[in-house]
Every structure is written in structure tokens, then in C-alpha cells.
């Protein structure tokens, strides 16, 4: 493994690890606040039980999210000094606001977790809500920074250095809006469905069914609404990508040859050498429609892009397919949720489905980020700086990679084990509750 590949792999899995905890850290506090609100309003102790249950999840996942985020802020410099030297001042604005939001979140979480008996109930509720809102806002800021890497703005690039830096323009770049909307919806739906699935599991095991049904409803009101909105947000993202990063769009569709009435493929594995799509089912004209709202529009293919500027087509295409497939399935089950909510009865098979869906949203998030980040290659700043020019000169990055791989795998195992014990404890507690 050469230095560049090792650094990319390290960055990729550190972020892939962090994003799961970040998503949970953004959404769990919101769910918790909703349950807490219902308790304060209706005085039904079941909601208090739920709030306390979810609070434990928040505490554990928040801590792991915070340490993995700390690692990331160092890694930006440890792995990509060539990038940070120029990018730091330009995208500093979202990062500094993000820091502020994190800080507020960290203070609020201390107050919420330990403040049950020390504050007036509604003040205490507000601290919980603050955790959720500032987490959510900080997510928006980081993703805006990522948007800048895809659609750089707010500076002039002259002789390998940035001039006339405008941090405000850089933050509100052309990619920030679609990326943040899409990401925040993704977090809501992934976490909403995962939480609902866990409670569906407890429900099916016959534990505290009334309580678990309440939990499913809260989680899915958030999750299902987001899931239904997501295909629209995704379509919007696709259109922006078509405009900003034609090479990425062509790669994610496996679209090699420029032309009108471009087909959309369902499935299939693109072959870079023969420049063809294997085993895919083409839907003629659909890609043109998705990218430009017109079945006859000309869509630029990879043949318009110099070969050395291609991203890895197969990885991007397959990840994209996985994300979209999951998005469709989840949107559908989101619609079903509202139907069943209206009828006030959730069929047994639907609850089983929810259990099966626990990991789906997270898988889609990972796949989506792979589309975005691998699809941006070979650029670290699209069209401005190549990833290979940004990587650290420190040799032996492979060892860095292995070290963190082992560390994070261990962390996964321990977190998983802890979570398992949490659920065990919940099950035991509700052994005899009907």
C-alpha cells in the first residue's frame, strides 16, 4: 500500500466510523426531547421511561462521537497538510461555527444527563433540546465544508496559492445546500428507522409492548417523514452534481459515452477497460430526465473527461445503486407507516420488516458518502488540487493505517458489546411487564 492509498483509507474509515456516531448524536437527542416533551405534557410515565432509555444511548454514542471527531480534526492535518495549508483559512468559517455549536452541545449534554433533580423540569427539557439542535446545526456546518471541496468558491487560485479569500462565499458554495439537506434527512431516517427497529424487536419478544409501540411511533414520525422526502432531496442533489461535477455524475451512473437520451441503469457493474456496462438494465432517457428534467437532453459521459481524471467508476456506481435502492425501499415503508398510523394498527409483518431494516439507513449513509468522496477523486478540491498533492510527506502511513484500523475495530466491538448489554438490561427490566 503506498502512502497516498494508506492515507485515503485511513481518512475513509475514520470518517465512516465517525458518521455513524455523528448521525446518532444528531438525532437521538431530538427523539429523546420528543419523548421528554410528551412526558411533561401527558405525565405518562412510559414516556419518562423512554426518555431515560434513550438518554443512555445518547451518552454512550455521544462520547464515542466526540473522541472520533477529535481524531478527525487532527487527521485533517496529520494526513492532508498540503490541503489544510490552503483550505484551512478558506473553509474556516463553517469549522469555527461548528466548534461553537459543539461546545454548546457539550455543555448542554452535561446539564441534561446529570441535571434531572437540579433544574426545573422545563429548563431541563430545554437543555436536552439544545443538545439536539446544536448537534444538528454542527452537522450542517461540517457538511458545508465538504460541499466546498466539491464546489470550491470564495477565492482566486493563482500560481498554486489562494488569494482574495472570502470565507462567507466559500461557506455558501454551490454544493452546500443539497448536501446539507440530503445529509440531515439521511441522519433522521437512518436513526429513526434503527431506533424503531430495535423497539420493534423488543415488542416482538413480548416485552413492554405498550411502551415499545410508543417508541416506534415517535421514532418513525421523524424517520418516515425524512425517508419520504429523501428521494426528492436526492434528485435535487443529482441535478446539482450533473451541473457541478459531470465526471462524478457519469461515474455514478456508469455513463461512458456522451449522448442524448442517456439511459439510467438498474444494477450492473461498469467495466472501465471496455467502457461498457455489464448486466445492467437500461431505462432509456431516464438519466437525461433525472439530470436535466428532459428525456432528450445530452448528458456528458466519461469520454469527455481525461482518463487520469476519472474516479473509480465501479465503486461509485455500485455505492450509488445501493443508496438509491435503499432510499426507495425506505420511502415506501415510510408511506406504509403513515397508513398504519392512521389505521391505528401495525401488522406483525411490518414490525418484522422494521427489525430487518435496522442497518439499512446506516448502510445508505456510508454508500452515499462513498459516492460523494470517491466520486470526487482524483481531486481533493474539485478542479483545483489533487489528492496526491495534499498528502503528508511522512513515510510509512501504512502503519498509521493499521494502528487506527485495530483501534477502531476494537472500539466497534466494545461499543457493540456495551449496546448489547444495554438491551439485555432493558429486556430483563421488562421481563414481566405486559
Amino acid at each position, binding site marked *: 500500500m503506498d502512502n497516498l492509498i494508506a492515507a485515503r483509507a485511513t481518512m475513509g474509515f475514520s470518517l465512516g466510523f465517525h458518521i455513524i456516531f455523528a448521525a446518532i448524536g444528531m438525532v437521538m437527542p431530538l427523539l429523546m426531547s420528543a419523548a421528554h416533551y410528551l412526558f411533561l405534557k401527558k405525565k405518562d410515565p412510559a414516556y419518562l421511561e423512554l426518555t431515560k432509555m434513550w438518554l*443512555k444511548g445518547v*451518552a*454512550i454514542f455521544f*462520547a*464515542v462521537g*466526540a*473522541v*472520533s471527531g*477529535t*481524531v478527525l*480534526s*487532527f487527521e*485533517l*492535518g*496529520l494526513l492532508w497538510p*498540503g490541503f*489544510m*495549508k*490552503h483550505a*484551512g*483559512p*478558506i473553509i*474556516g*468559517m463553517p*469549522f*469555527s*461555527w*461548528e*466548534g*461553537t455549536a*459543539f*461546545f*454548546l*452541545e*457539550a*455543555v448542554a449534554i*452535561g*446539564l441534561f*444527563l*446529570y*441535571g*434531572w*433533580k*437540579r*433544574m426545573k423540569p422545563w429548563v431541563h427539557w430545554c437543555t436536552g433540546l439544545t443538545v439536539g439542535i446544536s448537534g444538528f446545526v454542527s452537522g450542517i456546518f461540517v457538511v458545508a465544508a465538504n460541499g466546498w471541496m466539491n464546489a470550491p468558491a470564495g477565492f482566486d487560485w493563482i500560481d498554486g496559492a489562494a488569494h482574495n*479569500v472570502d*470565507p462567507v462565499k466559500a461557506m455558501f458554495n454551490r454544493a452546500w445546500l443539497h448536501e446539507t439537506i440530503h445529509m440531515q434527512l439521511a441522519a433522521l431516517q437512518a436513526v429513526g428507522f434503527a431506533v424503531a427497529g430495535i423497539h420493534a424487536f423488543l415488542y416482538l419478544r413480548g416485552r413492554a409492548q405498550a411502551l415499545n409501540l410508543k417508541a416506534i411511533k415517535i421514532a418513525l414520525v421523524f424517520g418516515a417523514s425524512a425517508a419520504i422526502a429523501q428521494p426528492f432531496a436526492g434528485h435535487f442533489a443529482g441535478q446539482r452534481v450533473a451541473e457541478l461535477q459531470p465526471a462524478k455524475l457519469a461515474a455514478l451512473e456508469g455513463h461512458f459515452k456522451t449522448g442524448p437520451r442517456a439511459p439510467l441503469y438498474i444494477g450492473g457493474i461498469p467495466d472501465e477497460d471496455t467502457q461498457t456496462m455489464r448486466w445492467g438494465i437500461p431505462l432509456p432517457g431516464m438519466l437525461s430526465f433525472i439530470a436535466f428534467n428532459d428525456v432528450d437532453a445530452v448528458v456528458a459521459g466519461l469520454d469527455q473527461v481525461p482518463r487520469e481524471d476519472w474516479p473509480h467508476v465501479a465503486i461509485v456506481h455500485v455505492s450509488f445503486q445501493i443508496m438509491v435502492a435503499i432510499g426507495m425501499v425506505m420511502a415506501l415503508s415510510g408511506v406504509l407507516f403513515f397508513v398504519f398510523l392512521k389505521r391505528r394498527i401495525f401488522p406483525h409483518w411490518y414490525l418484522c420488516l422494521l427489525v430487518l431494516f435496522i442497518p439499512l439507513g446506516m448502510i445508505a449513509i456510508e454508500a452515499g458518502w462513498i459516492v460523494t468522496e470517491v466520486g470526487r477523486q482524483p481531486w481533493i478540491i474539485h478542479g483545483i488540487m489533487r489528492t496526491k498533492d495534499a498528502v*503528508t*510527506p*511522512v513515510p510509512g502511513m501504512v502503519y*498509521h493505517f493499521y*494502528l487506527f484500523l485495530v*483501534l477502531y475495530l476494537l*472500539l466497534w466491538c*466494545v*461499543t457493540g458489546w*456495551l449496546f448489547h*448489554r444495554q438491551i439485555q*438490561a*432493558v429486556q430483563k427490566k421488562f421481563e414481566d411487564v405486559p
Partner: protein
Amino acid sequence: MTDIIVFFIGASLLLYVLLGGSDYGAGIIELLPAGTFREKQKHVINEAMGPVWEANHMWLILIVVILFVAFPTIFTTLMIALHLPMLALLVGIVVRGTAFTFRHYDAIQEPRSQRAYTLLFGVSSLWTSFWLGIIVASLNRGTINLEAATFWDAYIAPWWGVYPLSVGLFVASIFAFLAGVYLISETDDAALQRRFTRHAAVFNALVIVSGGLVFAASFIERESLPSRFFRTPSTIAAMALATLLFVVLWRVIPKRNALLTRVVAGGQVALILLGWWLLYAPDAVHTVQGPLNFYQEAAPHATMLQLVIALLVGSLFIFPSLFFLLRVFKSKQHPSGD
């Protein structure tokens, strides 16, 4: 503009050392044999640190973010030359953060796993504070060399030597000392209070010994530290005052006035930090090629302006809420929550 930002870096550093430092120190104290006190001590530490844990560690992130936004060359120079100690630091941060939280939130509290968490927490606290010291010591040694030809010169020599090692020890002792002082008034149990007082005294002695070691080491290594030190009267004054405060501190501790004790101990550490700062400011880092100065390495004006706005607006939110946090948890009349 730069002044304000440098001030924020200094303030964050101070708060990180004072607040985060006592978290590290608590871990170090838990490494010591505690016999029958183990459970009680763990409980006190969980109660005292839990609510402020996340907030205390934000100061470090704030420093990192300010550095890469406002002083990108300083940031990248450090991240390249000190790659290995930074890596060691990160491993420590990950292990510490998770061990502390998992210990508290493990749903099934059994002695075996609890002991494992405590051990990990303690070892990683010592490890991390030690590397923090090494990094701090390497900033101004003038051994960072981005044009070096060999791996050793480029990535090991900048932080290798007796001097960084002794600063590592010095930082760990300071942290443990702070924790000892801080914990005394976190418990009502007289025996435990005596224990923490004893710890504070031992680590106080260690601070003095390892501080002497730092000086001796810098003489041995012919660092710029000693000659600089004697040419900077403000630093000498700060150090003298810090030493004087030790005497005051040990008169204050038996009075059992929590606030006063903490102010004195904190003031001491602040003076040590201030002395160090005055020694080198406004140079942030010394390399073989010369110093990197905050004013010369600052980002473009538009960036600095945005950062100042973010920091000031952020302070408007953060300081009141932080104050609220401390008030809610440090008022004694309430029974423990959660």
C-alpha cells in the same frame, strides 16, 4: 485581530490545562493503589467529572480549529514534524474518552469489567498527559526541521531527548496535583479528603522535582531555555510568584475553603503557563529554519475577521452556559442527580 485570536488560544490552553488537566490527573490518581477506598474514590471522580467531561475536552478541539483556520502553516508544520507524538496523543484520547464513559454507562456494573475500565482510564490518562508534555516541549526547542533528509531528523529528532521527556513528567505531575487539590472538596468523607490531600502533597513535591528536572535537562541539551529564562524578567517573576503560592496553598488547604484552594492552585498553574508563554511569545514554534511567528503566519484578514466574530459570538453563548453548568453542579445543597 491577531491579538484577539492569540488571546483565545492562550485562554483555551489555560482552561484546558486547568479543567481538562484535572480530568487527566483524576485518572492518574486512580492508578495509585487505593485499597478499600477504590469504590468510593471512583464514585467521587465520576460525580465530579461526569457533568463537565465533554465541555472540558472541547478546549483542545478549539485550539486545533483556531490553529488550522488562523495559522495554517503553524498547524501543518506541527502535524508533519510531530506526527508520531500526535498519533500517540490521539490513541490516548480515544482510549480515555471511551473508558471513562463506558465505565459510567455500562448497563451491567460488575467488578471485572469495571476494573478493566478503570485501569484503561488510568493508564491512558498518564500516557496522554505525558505525550501532551512532549508536544509542548517540542514547540520551542528549535529542532523541528521540515527540510531534513533522514527519517530520524525529520520525524524523531524534533521530540526526542531528555528535555521533552522531563516536560512530559512535569505535565503529568501538574495534572495529578491539580486533580488532588480539586477532589479534596468534592467529597464529604473525611478519610477520603485526607487521602486526596496526601496525593496533592506528593504530587506537589513531584511538580517541584520534575520542574527542576526540566531545567537541568535543558542545560544538558544546551537548549535556549536557560539563557532565555534569565533574560526574561517577567518570566522569572511569574515563576517566583508560582513558587511562593505553594506556601500559601498549604496554609489554605487545612481551612477547607473549596473555592480559595482551587483559586490558589489554579493561579499557580496559570502563572507557570504564563511564564512559559512570555518566554517565547509571539513565536509559536521554533524550527531549524527559524521561528514561526503568530503575526507573520496569520491567515488572510477576511478569515481572521470571521473567526473573531465566531469566537466572540460563541463566547456570548458558551460562557454563560458554562457558568450555568458549573453553578448547577457545584452548589452543594442538592443530592446527587442521575
